[in-house]
């Protein structure tokens, strides 16, 4: 059972990533450190408030609690990363952008509704792109190919039935 001191000592570059809408609806949450459910809810609520209150002309970085928040708005969605003090915020912006590009390629001109109705796929893509907050592969093609292959595997799972049907035996 991990106590709170350990939480402090375990330094992770990216602590969590959130996606939420202009209306404050959470669309995705990925936590890279173990946090109690009610703390997560509190942090999400607070952070959404802080970010949504930002004016368009302000910079993409802000200090919140002991973390730095890097956020960017894409259409109706805010992409929000909480990183450690020492990080390079500019490259975090690029990480966010890469994730958006992956979603865009996968869904074909992605919009918020895609993320809402296919949230699990958004997670799959995120988990193929980042692990523990770090990039797994810097090639867009490579990440998308892996997702594609995994999707195919999923389809194969669901199709034995149709093979029999095809043979006229079902």
């Amino acid at each position, binding site marked *: *059972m991990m106590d709170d001191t350990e939480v402090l000592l375990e330094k992770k570059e990216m602590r969590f990533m959130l996606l939420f809408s202009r209306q404050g609806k959470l669309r995705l949450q990925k936590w890279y450190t*173990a946090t109690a459910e009610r703390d997560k809810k509190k942090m999400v609520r607070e952070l959404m408030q802080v970010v949504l209150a930002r004016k368009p002309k302000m910079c993409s970085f802000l200090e919140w609690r002991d973390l730095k928040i890097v956020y960017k708005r894409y259409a109706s969605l805010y992409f929000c990363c909480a990183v450690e003090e020492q990080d390079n915020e500019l490259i975090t912006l690029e990480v966010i952008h890469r994730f958006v590009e992956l979603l865009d390629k996968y869904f074909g001109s992605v919009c918020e509704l895609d993320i809402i109705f296919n949230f*699990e796929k958004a997670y*799959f893509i995120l988990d193929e792109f980042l692990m*523990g907050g770090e990039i797994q592969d810097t090639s867009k093609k490579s990440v998308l190919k892996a997702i594609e292959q995994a999707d195919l595997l999923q389809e194969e*799972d669901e199709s034995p039935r149709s093979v029999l049907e095809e043979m006229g035996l079902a």
Partner: protein
Amino acid sequence: MPAPIRLRELIRTIRTARTQAEEREMIQKECAAIRSSFREEDNTYRCRNVAKLLYMHMLGYPAHFGQLECLKLIASQKFTDKRIGYLGAMLLLDERQDVHLLMTNCIKNDLNHSTQYVQGLALCTLGCMGSSEMCRDLAGEVEKLLKTSNSYLRKKAALCAVHVIRKVPELMEMFLPATKNLLSEKNHGVLHTSVVLLTEMCERSPDMLSHFRKLVPQLVRILKNLIMSGYSPEHDVSGISDPFLQVRILRLLRILGKGDDDSSEAMNDILAQVATNTETSKNVGNAILYETVLTIMDIKSESGLRVLAINILGRFLLNNDKNIRYVALTSLLKTVQTDHNAVQRHRSTIVDCLKDLDVSIKRRAMELSFALVNGNNIRGMMKELLYFLDSCDPDFKADCASGIFLAAEKYAPSKRWHIDTIMRVLTTAGSYVRDDSVPNLIQLITNSVEMHAYTVQRLYKALLDDISQQPLVQVASWCIGEYGDLLVSGQCEEEEPIQVSEDEVLDVLEGLLVSNLSTPVTRGYSLTAIMKLSTRFSSLNRIKKVVSIYGSSIDVELQQRAVEYNALFKKYDHMRPALLERMPIMEKTATNGPSETVQTNGETDSTILDTKHLPSISQPASQVGFLKHGFSIQTCAHFRSNPNPNIAVITIHATNSTEADMTEFVFQAAVPKTFQLQLLSPSSNVVPAFNQGSVTQVIRVLNPQKQQLRMRIKLTYTHKGSPVQDLAEVNNFPPQSWQ
């Protein structure tokens, strides 16, 4: 039994709910259906049900009853089940629940699965949320996969290893052999994650760091190839080849080059090359430049390179993109001590940033401006800073005022200028000035003997205008009490002396006593001032009358003062002149070395407060680490009474001057990676009110690298029935505690 509703169908349905209540009802209905489906051990639809549960969980509804179902999905043979199962595990489970350990065996099997995508799922889950126990059990499997030739798995194993090392640092050694050929990989995914792994190992262990220094030439080569190679569509971002990898390599080089002449020299050329050749029109190029600057500043680079780096930052300051300006100011703040002259050249641009619209940029510009103030530019800088003080947000005013006072004290070109500056701050931001400024200012004024008449006159005039700003009022009261005789005798040389009578002065002071705007502290100041005037003015009767009235004040503090002053008049009148005579010059108690700026949490929220460095504390070894309304933590570093020179023993004393006890008080601390911390048991977990006692706790810090001791502290306690949590950084340990 009809098949459970599909996921997308459910999402569609829930979105049609027009009210929160309607949504809740739909969710409850669906949850009930899901629960009975789980009870029936339905394998076919388990996946679909868990997926729906995850959706509802995201909306904020409880989903803990799905935890075991996730485990069943993970154990299934179907890929779809595993995919959702692992996702569910990552969302619903974490190491805080004992049930998570049940995953270990499944993950172990899946790490050895014949399908790489299943292995990938297992690695990802372990690498994101594996507990220490899981990591211990599965480290061997991860190490095996780190040596595979399958780059898909190898890259994931590397990041998984990073997580394992973070959770169980002792296991780091076992991954060493597998790192041998990591950098010879062509695959960028493997390269990137390998660099991350190497970075983690070097950051954690000085031995690893020395061991991996030999990789510098190879890293330099890889970086060079990235820059020189032609267009590579797979890794290109706005014309730059794999910026993510470039940044990670630069960061690793930074760690390897720090403090090491040879390594720093070996990377000198490539750093200069990146710094001069990177395209700066887009954010991605600037991200690389930024990382390069950070590296140049941290390693032992030649002065030409350092100047190049500072100039890049200077150019950043002029960039239209405010994000770039922000990072520039952050970096300049870090380097201003070591490369002061180079940063000075960009002073005017920095000062311009005070007018920026963005709060974070303004704050950094302000901190940097204070760091750049010196004897030569004090007049010009102070003008800008006073203008900033006038117009900035209330959140800034306290820090700005303190900064101005400090700067004025250090570099004031004349006493007159100094007093004028203080007056300006008190009159424009008087209510934001910190409480400890009042005694500091009083001391300053006392010691500026030739300015007494001028000071008291200006303060008196300020009081006529406005008595709402307490620090101003307090300083003014004190001065009038002290120098009232100069005021009425019209002795001012610096400006036109005003004509004011004793009665008028007493009117003002008595006005402060009765005003609703005055705090009890202010009232105390003005009563004492009135009393002091009894030896400077001739209106004794009036003063005696005022003093006797307040002998029955309901304010205990005022009452006590009045009663004592009364006694002074009645029984000890012979002592009165001596007691109330002019204050002598006050010696400032020795400060502890250079006054370091203590890092705050950069917090504007009043619930998490900044750490303060009080200028003069009596014991040389103790510093105030944390201060909040009435609650203080004092850290006392002992460092001599130790057999092991690498161990600093720090005792913390927590005291509480508020009117309620702080119960269930828990002090926690964390230190940077190169340190180790041991917290011994606290003396108690109640910090009594009214400073009636303190909680002490001993911390032992092992600091083998003799780095500057920094500590992050977390305080949790209950005060007046509510739980409170504070986070703060303590950086002001005296150098002797870590050198």
